[in-house]
């Protein structure tokens, strides 16, 4: 057992209100520079919808992630040989048009325009060329546009849905949708890292955060195509790739990443998972329907004495093990099995997990007015407005079993709480539902608390990283005293 520790995440989609506060927090801190205007390390998508960059989930178009050919795991977009021949021109490279051309407005014109018969306007100006542009799309162009035949109809997750299921998604004034916030998943088997010819991308050994070494990046741009989530971005100005750094300077000082910290819906959870690094490759080769379970099996029980002993042996600090024992992510992913990896079929083993939404709408407009789909208090999950198959395409590699499991459990917890707080449902009925959903009263209480009553300390269990000690072992802290510090001492600039 080769135990490693990974800072992992859970997003609870039923709580996301789609306010984009996370995206703005991130943008203000990290991507407000020249060349990064178009990047959204954190973005929030409307589902069904095409997302950002457009239709990123369609790997026939983008070639991201891994393919398992028999006993081999290979990147779809590149290989050792292909790197040699494709290094000059990457055939799977998305371009700015797949994202959008960033723009601002010519506000000065409002002040400087000569006097005339019309009000002056502030025209949109490209932030790349500085020339006026016609704005035709943006990073969030299909926000709340589920149901639209232009955007939502192109969602790759609609593959395999029956006409009836598709109609179900756009019934009642076309109002069914949910939000899907995304950051880099800091994967266990990152395609970006494996594709980088320069070895500039790496996973931090101590906490699993995936970083891109700016001084080693040479703009061969293999990572851009390899990441199936399209979460490595190309800075066209500096000629370097950039990506989400999980706010490591914040995490190292005990603060949650900015997108977590600012999350209005409190949907985000952060904590340590211990995992077995030795099993990754074997697990990543399994057939699609086994992948969710395979990834779960890599996650180790931090209270198991054997795991603790092995973790200590691989140099994991006791404080990190203790933090893993309190990890909310462990509960959601492994104990309760409520949270699922997005598109596990890309085989990167994303370490950001989602609790799929138990979408609320239960009524339909019929001939006589509004009719309930179900006579039950909470609708039957199989007649939910978001078809199970759609969620399965997103969170179960197309297989419904794992998704049905989490939705049933979530529903049972709601019944149970309804029985306790309102009392119009029998407690025995609620308890029976819990049993049928593979749960029990204690677990339901715990799920309820961590979902609805969670404090900041419940949501973010950040392990101490002892970075200061680690750095002292490598460098003499006095060496740079009264100097200018260390690291990049010049602003990142194109060319010499």
């Amino acid at each position: 057992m080769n135990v490693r520790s990974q800072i992992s995440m859970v997003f609870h989609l039923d709580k996301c209100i789609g306010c984009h506060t996370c995206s703005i927090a991130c943008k203000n801190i990290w991507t407000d520079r020249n060349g990064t205007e178009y990047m959204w390390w954190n973005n929030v998508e409307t589902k069904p919808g095409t997302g950002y960059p457009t239709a990123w989930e369609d790997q026939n178009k983008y070639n991201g992630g891994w393919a398992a050919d028999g006993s081999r795991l290979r990147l779809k977009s590149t290989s050792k040989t292909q790197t040699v021949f494709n290094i000059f021109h990457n055939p799977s490279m998305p371009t700015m048009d797949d994202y959008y051309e960033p723009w601002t407005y010519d506000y000065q014109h409002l002040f400087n325009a000569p006097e005339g018969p019309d009000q002056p306007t502030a025209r949109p100006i490209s932030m790349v060329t500085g020339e006026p542009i016609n704005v035709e799309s943006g990073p969030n162009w299909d926000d709340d546009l589920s149901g639209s035949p232009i955007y939502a109809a192109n969602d790759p997750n609609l593959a395999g849905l029956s006409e009836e299921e598709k109609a179900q998604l756009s019934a009642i004034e076309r109002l069914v949708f949910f939000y899907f916030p995304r950051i880099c998943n800091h994967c266990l088997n990152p395609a970006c890292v494996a594709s980088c010819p320069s070895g500039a991308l790496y996973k931090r050994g101590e906490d699993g955060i995936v970083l891109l070494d700016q001084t080693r990046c040479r703009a061969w741009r293999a990572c851009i195509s390899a990441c199936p989530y399209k979460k490595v971005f190309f800075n066209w100005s500096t000629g370097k790739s950039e990506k989400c750094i999980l706010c490591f300077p914040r995490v190292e000082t005990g603060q949650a990443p900015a997108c977590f910290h600012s999350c209005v819906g409190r949907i985000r959870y952060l904590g340590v998972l211990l995992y077995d690094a030795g099993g990754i490759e074997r697990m990543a080769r399994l057939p699609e329907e086994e992948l969710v379970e395979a990834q779960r099996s890599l996650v180790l029980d931090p209270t198991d004495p054997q795991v603790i002993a092995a973790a200590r042996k691989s140099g994991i600090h006791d404080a990190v093990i203790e933090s893993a024992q309190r990890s909310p992510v462990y509960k959601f992913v492994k104990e309760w099995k409520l949270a699922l990896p997005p598109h596990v079929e890309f085989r990167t083993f994303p370490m950001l997990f989602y609790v799929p939404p138990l979408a609320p709408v239960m009524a339909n407009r019929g001939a006589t007015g509004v009719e309930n789909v179900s006579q039950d208090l909470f609708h039957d999950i199989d007649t939910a407005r978001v078809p199970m198959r759609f969620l399965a395409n997103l969170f179960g590699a197309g297989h419904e079993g794992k998704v049905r499991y989490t939705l049933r459990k979530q529903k049972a917890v709601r019944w149970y709480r309804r029985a306790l707080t309102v009392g119009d449902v029998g407690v025995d009925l609620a308890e029976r539902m819990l049993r049928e959903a593979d749960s029990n009263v204690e677990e339901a209480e715990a799920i309820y608390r961590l979902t609805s009553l969670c404090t900041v300390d419940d949501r973010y269990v950040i392990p101490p990283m002892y970075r200061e000690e680690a750095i002292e072992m490598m460098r003499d802290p006095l060496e740079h005293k009264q100097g200018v510090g260390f690291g990049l001492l010049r602003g990142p600039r194109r060319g010499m």
Partner: protein
Amino acid sequence: MTNLATYFDQLLFVALPYVAFFVFFLVSITRYHWRGFTYSSLSSQFLENRQHFWGLVPFHYGIIVVLTGHVVAWLIPRQVLWWNDRPLRLYILEISALACGLLTLIGLVSLMLRRLTVSKIRVVTSKLDWVVLLLLLAQVVSGVGTAVLYPWGSSWYAAMAAPYLWSILKLNPDLTYIAAMPPLVKFHIVGAFALILVFPFSRLVHILVIPNPYLWRKPQVARWYRAPGEAAGEPV
């Protein structure tokens, strides 16, 4: 007159190469050390994808073959001369070299047109980029011109230019062969030194950092502040 010519020859074929190589090594190394960040291929594919293919690919395939040819003929001139002993082999070599030169030229012209016409690409084009591209254009045109006008280049390069380049390396410059070269060939040689001179300041440094370790390393990369397992005294 002859005095003046010798003087220029000394300047261009003795002083210039030494200055160029000295600057090349000094600046490349110090730049790598102090400004490592600036070593990048500065790709512009993200901003324009279609013309990119038709420029960058032919240019690189062409120039890499041609440059490799120059280096090989410099390293093993005798074997090249032996190869050229048979007319058929000579024709094969000359025709492929010329084809690669033309490929380079086509690629270079189309990537220059791209830099000129696509507005997004103009934003990421510096003056130095133009210096490099124009020098390359002059170099490729004079190279292709030499190949056409003065056959058989592969033979006389091995017999006359290679010894000169070796003499430079051995710090004992010998201009016997060079002095008699036609102006076009002289121009081509001087162009090469000029390129070596601007090389370390320009985007050309990307050639120094081609990522060969990728071919041998394991796919996944982890970096540790400490060696894994170090705390327990047992590296994993």
